[in-house]
């Protein structure tokens, strides 16, 4: 079982993430277990996926719209967002929209080409679970959450910007 970072801890990942086949066709649905399916799979096998045992999650690619799952969020145990390349920053805004606009409160997972140097920003945008790319040690990466001790602007993680918190302390 792979390990991920969740809520600042390193844990074994109970979820299996499915991908479309190279030709775009759907992969077989495992008979049991918790699965995270690509958006296209959710859209095409909706009822079947809901009927199977095991928990269900969905993942969005960086070019996909969070609005496509906005109405269904309550059905998912996890929503994941892919970072195909570290420089593709669309996932940060997707996370903000899922949290702020569509009110997703559950596990929001980042995966793909990410490693310790993105964690601080990913967490700021509301991600609370992280599957780092191959070869990274998630335990070593944990210190990255403390790279900065303060943030100026409001964010998902800390909705009040610094200027609204100054006189609270």
């Amino acid at each position: 079982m792979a390990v991920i970072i969740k809520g600042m801890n390193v844990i074994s990942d109970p979820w299996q993430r499915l991908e479309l086949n190279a030709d775009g066709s759907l992969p077989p649905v495992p008979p049991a277990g918790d699965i995270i399916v690509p958006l296209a799979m959710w859209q095409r096998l909706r009822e079947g996926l809901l009927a199977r045992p095991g928990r269900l999650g969905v993942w969005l690619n960086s070019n996909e719209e969070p609005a496509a799952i906005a109405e269904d969020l309550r059905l998912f145990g996890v929503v994941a967002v892919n970072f195909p390349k570290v420089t593709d920053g669309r996932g940060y805004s997707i996370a903000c929209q899922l949290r702020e606009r569509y009110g997703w409160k559950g596990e929001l997972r980042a995966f793909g080409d990410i490693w310790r140097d993105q964690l601080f920003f990913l967490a700021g945008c509301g991600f609370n679970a992280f599957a780092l790319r191959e070869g990274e040690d998630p335990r070593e990466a944990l210190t990255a959450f403390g790279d900065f001790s303060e943030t100026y602007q409001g964010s998902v993680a800390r909705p009040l910007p610094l200027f609204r918190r100054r006189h609270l302390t």
Partner: protein
Amino acid sequence: MYRYDEIDQRLVEERVAQFRDQTRRFLAGQLSEDDFRSLRLRNGLYIQRYAPMLRVAIPYGLLTSHQLRTLAHIARKWDRGYGHFSTRQNLQFNGPRLEDTPDILAELARVQMHAIQTSGNCVRNITTDHFAGIARDEIVDSFVWCELLRQWSTFHPEFSYLPRKFKIAVNGAEADRAAVFLHDIGLQAVRDKGGTRSDGASPGGEVGFRVIVGGGMGRTPIIGHVMQEFLPWRHLLTYVEAVLRVYNRYGRRDNIHKARVKILVKALTPERFREEVEAEWASLTDGPSTLTEEEVRRVQGQFTRPAYAQLPGDDVGYAAQLATEPAFGAWAKRNVHPHKVPGYAAVTLSLKKTGVPPGDATADQMDAVADLADRYSLGELRVSHEQNLILADVRQAGLHALWQKAKALGLATPNIGLLTNIIACPGGDFCSLANAKSIPVAQAIQERFDRLDYVYDIGELDLNISGCMNSCGHHHVGHIGILGVDKNGEEWYQISIGGNQGLTRAGAPAALGKVIGPSFARAQISDVIEKLIGVYLEQRESEDERFVDVVWRIGIEPFKERVYGGHHQGHERHQRSLAAA
């Protein structure tokens, strides 16, 4: 000058620690070249043609003498003894060693400086009018708004990996000295026409911003589109955030040359883009990031205010010196600028001396300028986007002594606003992106037009040179623009005329220059410029009509004709094909 508080200081120090660790991991082989690139770039570190280049942020161009001395120290200790002031009001070191950059950043942090977000696909240094806070046509002190935006954009978690770099400019005066129509976002301060509010709390109208999006230079120059005619100041951060979010989600990432927000605005149409922003803004407006009066006042309070003396008005001795010393008068006419406080003036120290690459300053010059700033200008200075240094708070009574000292330092070339005040990027001598050299072209033109009397006759003229289509030398908005192009491995130069950086005077809005025709070899450039000037001098109706005004009035045809002629054009092509063969 903005003074860091404890949190500002802590954040830059934490950034140094973070970058030191990243550099260590890279040098230890734990980060690949590619991995490290995306990290070093947001700390201003490029790997260039001949050596690394480190770009230091000078937020909105404002600098203390103490900071300038530190830059001089860095230039001596870790670089080649000089620095290059860029058109983004930053300073670039063209040869530090990668291993030394964490130490350089630590040295910068000691004087409240950094290199955060000076490169990479993120929100870059916010630029403004170099006469902010002292201009007679001031609407607001734009430094305060720049600093609010600087804090908002620093380490913004959502906008760290944008499709491309993102540049914001703020102009707080009537005249646009910040080129707001040529930035990803341009913010022009405006006062609500409403006048006094009904509750009597506001003596003038409320402050807001005209929001302009999608302007820019580069290979697709576009004049920006007005998205909001009047955005009340409270909504500044949330609206800018909405613009950035739409851009981050939908800006193109498949082609680096089509990735700026201007391309997205054009593709969607400005109307559709505005709708997208409004939809996004609906979930942010009036939220926690809405600015408060208290915060604006707090940031205002973090700026030291110059301690001006109470002076009765214009200095009598200064007026007398102007009348009796023509050389001093010539310098004052071009390099001394009006100030809103009686008895004071702003001075441009020219970094455009013939024979010196535009914007370059040696460590010794930096130290000397720091001394001048201490002695004559309350210890502060500014970097202008025209790559000069400004002493903004000089008593008129001290101008003559300052002039003599500046002259001795080679910083008193009286050419501000004139043809020889050339804006140029570092070009092919330093930059790996450049198609062609820009500095030798600037020098050749300066030498040709150095007979200053002649220059005076020509009057105001912005001549800008870029070594490639990235247009760091702002050639699109030069009254005359020169662009280096590569043709079969040779350096050629395309010339455009009629560009303008912004509404610096009534009736003269931002405009993009038009290319006059086929490009030229470097040796031909000075002749071509002289021909263009010749047409202007014949056609102008008075000395008040500038070169660019004549281009706009009569069009580019007469200029083309003079430069290429009829049969001459064929000859020209023939020559080029020979050269290309």
